[in-house]
């Protein structure tokens, strides 16, 4: 479903993604792990048509994201690191706009919105403004929205950041359910190793822009001779702390934190 070959992305003299190759099969849940600044988000941006690769090839459901932008966009859903809901609109209205933008026919749109809102336990609150939702509810709504246009692939960029264990647990249960029911391929990034261990069928570990390990959670643990995925991750990527230089997005995030008191 996703095929990446020798993917490279450089910004000036800095190489964010360096010769990365991997495959994700249909219906698979693939976790992309790496320390801060390892190249996870850059890779997702290239996979989702937002960034042009410097070199290498990407195929999403047989399509090149750069050559067939709109066709590719119809085939995936994405949940970003930062929230992308409209807080002044209701849950239902957020779903409606998404459905219209993805050309989902009227009847099907309503039917699927209802199904998904019920599945993600948001149906009772569908007419409430999203700004009144808790962090976990907003996340669930974003994921439900991502499934609305029946994508073949769902990208989740750190979807559980800032959520309590209950919400995290519930969120993954829902994602797994849709993954099994609709055979949706899921490509996710997270910093919680226990989540990746539990949810993902296969894992890729990226560090300094290079893919350093790839396989099932079990294979990776065996390969590194460690007990838990967290130990395996540290064995692969070392224990030095990575400090990303703060870009404009980080500055904005700081600002948002100041104003809203919490990240989400």
């Amino acid at each position: 479903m996703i095929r990446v070959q020798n993917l490279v992305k450089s910004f000036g003299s800095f190489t964010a993604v360096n010769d990365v190759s991997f495959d994700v099969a249909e219906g698979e849940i693939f976790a992309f792990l790496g320390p801060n600044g390892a190249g996870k988000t850059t890779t997702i941006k290239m996979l989702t048509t937002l960034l042009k690769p410097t070199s290498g090839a990407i195929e999403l459901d047989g399509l090149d994201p750069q050559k067939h932008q709109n066709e590719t966009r119809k085939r995936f859903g994405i949940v970003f690191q930062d929230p992308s809901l409209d807080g002044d609109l209701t849950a239902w209205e957020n779903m409606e706009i998404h459905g219209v933008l993805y050309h989902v026919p009227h009847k099907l749109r309503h039917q699927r919105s209802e199904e998904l809102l019920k599945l993600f336990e948001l149906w009772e609150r569908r007419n409430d403004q999203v700004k009144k939702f808790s962090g976990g509810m907003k996340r669930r709504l974003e994921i439900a929205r991502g499934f609305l246009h029946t994508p073949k692939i769902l990208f989740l960029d750190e979807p559980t950041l800032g959520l309590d264990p209950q919400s995290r647990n519930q969120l993954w249960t829902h994602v797994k359910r849709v993954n099994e029911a609709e055979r949706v391929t899921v490509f996710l990034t997270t910093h919680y190793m226990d989540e990746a261990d539990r949810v993902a069928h296969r894992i890729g570990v990226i560090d300094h822009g290079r893919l350093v390990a790839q396989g099932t959670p079990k294979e990776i643990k065996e390969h590194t001779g460690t007990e838990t995925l967290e130990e395996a991750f540290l064995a692969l990527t070392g224990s030095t702390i990575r400090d990303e230089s703060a870009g404009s997005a980080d500055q904005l995030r700081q600002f948002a934190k100041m104003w809203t008191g919490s990240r989400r």
Partner: protein
Amino acid sequence: MRAIYILWLRELKRYVRSRAQIAASLGQPMLYLLVLGFGLGPVFQRAGDGSYFQFVAPGVIGMSVLFSSIFSGLGLLWDRQFGFLKETLVAPVPRLQIMAGKTLGGATVAMIQGLLVTVVCVIAGFRPAHLATVPIAFLFLALIAVVFAALGVAIGSSLQDMQGFQLIMNFLVLPIFFLSGALFPLKGLPKLLGYVTAADPLTYGIDGMRAVLLNLTHFGAMTDLIVLASVGSVLLVIGAHRFSKIEI
């Protein structure tokens, strides 16, 4: 077309739901209208220029449209990192349609805001010279709204952080307002000030409104119309171009 419509509708819904903001945004125009309108009235009268309140009302209406429309575009900076905009940028919809929905929505909201201020002006005692020409004044209102919504989108698409926002406010939005002749007559200005005001698009919007509402014009309503329409077209093209270059 459905995409443009739903994004336009979104801007309208957001506006209608932010009642506190609507009330707050009426405060500043009212301050200018009542304090300057009545405060400078006697001086203006003595200078032989008639009622300052009548003179300044179109200026205050233009100001509210300027602020409202330009801020809707500047909001892009925030919206693309923490808001809904990012969702629209990965949707299978051409960027041009998203920009059109956003700009038209912002311009419509600014027009409604302008109408509200007009109502406030009329309640406070503003009287147009002829009722028949009032609809043409709304045409000028709409043109001001489109010109500055497009400018806002062009700038909002290019900004990288919140510091830039302050710069734009102090070195662009406020000068556009103060140099537009909203508060003072354009005739007999010092040469340099005359040139600068003539380079400000808002000048033509307010002059146009005065032409049709008060029979008082510096450039002539036709010139105003042509200048506004051409500046608007150019800014729409620039806005669309800048918007297509947004990276998230």
